[in-house]
């Protein structure tokens, strides 16, 4: 049993992959928080709390949900928009939810415009520039999501959540697996239910630095 925990960084000049430190992915019906396997119900609560505590809670939708390449993707996109709107409704003054897409995975040089997009090859730029202290990846291919999550953990203090359509991400601080429209809606419902019960860390936030 590993003692390693997947925590907000900045962790290291080159942080290890969580898998190499013995963190395992959840089985169906489970999620993980900080690398510890938990029932999925607990993860909804924790993810919603993290969103409501954050100064800049942000959703990062990826290519798998940004284009209506099948019916399921279109429905997920609508659910993500609903989650974003729910965040805007539920946060307190001073909190600024954001929705920033990861439209593709091209290495972009000399640098991206971090206000309009996030890129898996240098995701920390978007985190730093927008002072994002909690984010959720959704609809990003697993490989690129893991690249991003590791780099973010290495160089920022941002709390990372993954809503993965496949097996989950151990490099996130919290990860769901088998993402579906229902799961996204359930997360939005949990955010709504916890509205006003969580104190935002407006003064203490490190703002992703």
């Amino acid at each position, binding site marked *: 049993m590993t003692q390693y925990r997947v925590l907000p960084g900045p962790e290291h000049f080159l942080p290890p992959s969580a898998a190499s430190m013995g963190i395992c992915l959840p089985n169906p019906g489970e999620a993980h928080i900080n690398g510890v396997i938990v029932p999925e119900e607990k993860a909804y609560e924790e993810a919603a709390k993290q969103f409501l505590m954050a100064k800049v809670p942000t959703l990062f939708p990826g290519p798998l949900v940004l284009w209506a390449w099948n019916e399921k993707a279109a429905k997920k996109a609508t659910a993500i928009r609903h989650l974003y709107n729910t965040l805007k409704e539920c946060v307190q003054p001073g909190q600024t939810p954001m929705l920033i897409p990861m439209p593709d*995975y*091209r290495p972009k040089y000399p640098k991206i415009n971090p206000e309009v997009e996030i890129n898996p090859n*240098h995701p920390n730029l978007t985190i730093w520039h927008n002072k994002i202290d909690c984010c959720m990846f959704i609809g990003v291919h697993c490989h690129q999501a*893991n*690249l991003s999550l590791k780099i973010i953990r290495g160089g920022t203090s941002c709390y990372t959540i993954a809503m993965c359509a496949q097996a989950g991400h151990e490099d996130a601080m919290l990860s769901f697996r088998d993402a579906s429209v229902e799961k996204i809606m359930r997360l939005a419902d949990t955010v709504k239910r916890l509205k006003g019960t969580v104190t935002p860390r407006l003064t203490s936030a490190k703002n992703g630095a």
Partner: protein
Amino acid sequence: MADTHSVIGTKNKKGQTFTDTWKMMNEAPRTPSFYTGSEVIKEALRRASCDVMIAYPITPQSEAAALIGELFAEGYIGDYFRGESEFAVMSQCAGAAFGGARVFTTTAGPGTMRAMENFPMWSGARLPIQMIVTCRGINSPLSIQPDTLEIAYLLNTGMLVWHAETAQDFFDWILKGYMVSEEPDVHLPLALCCDGFFVTHTKDVVNLTPADMCLPPYDPYRSPVPCMDMECPPVRMMRDPFVMKSNYISYATHASWQQEVWAAVERSRKHTIKWINGLIETENTDAEVLIVSSGTAVSQGREAIRLLEDEGIRCGLVKIKSLRPWPGEEIREATKNAKHIIVPEFNVTGWLAKEIKATIPNSDRVNAGPRVCGGMTMPPEIIVSEIKNLLGMRTMSLAGRGS
């Protein structure tokens, strides 16, 4: 969009039924058949719903490659052709896999070495290609005989590497291998190795699954990277790689990419354990003397154990099935009681003994040998002799005939 589960129970163009792989491999009736290893590769491929097989002749895999050509002629393989060289074959395999195909190829010895540049590329691109490696000598002067040195070169490519002992392993693992390597959290190529000739060219009884059942097709939409897209990594990375940019973040991205490949190898652990019933197999690990090996050296070890039993010497066995992922925990547990760990190998460098020494406490317990190479056989008697020497018992020299 393909949905693997929706095709279960339906038939392919050859009348085979797409079958839940777990049921096919573990519950379906088996038919004992007397086949060479090469014929077994063909029979596994018949059931693998393989889209593309690319071939290039090199002993001792040529027969298997040719037999799979017959499968193509019969309509069991989507496409089949001969590449210009092993390097070309492995590059063409990448192209087919980038396009979303289930891909299979076979190679051996110098062919493996010639194509080596492609293997870390396959891993980095997260392509779940399956490659059979029928190991043979790689050095000059030329040898086509069994020798496992090429496996050592594969261990750091980021591929999954399994080492089959028997033709039965081969049949089962070809089919199960796709189930592991195509998992979205793994999605890596598999080098399924065996000792050439010993496995490929000898006949053995192999229990085959029904020929009218086949694997569900590969679903490329579960891939952790996009299918072929010239503007996105990994393809764009290859023509516009991070290494061409001299800045911290491009290096850091490449480092993170490499870590992700090895993270995927780690993730394959639980799937591999599930499908091939553990990364190792053990017998009598409470014995003071243990033989730990992989491939056909395990078979020779079994025979040595039988000979030792006749003399009242108790010896245990650890068969290493998967080299990547490496069964470190399992080996530490299995060897915790052993005073002497014997590692017979069919190669000159003893790469397996080195791996084991790096894994266990008190590594001076490891006896790196006996080793043979260049196609020599490994008589069980030399393993027996090695063990008796370690135990301080008298043993006859097997090297000469004059004593």
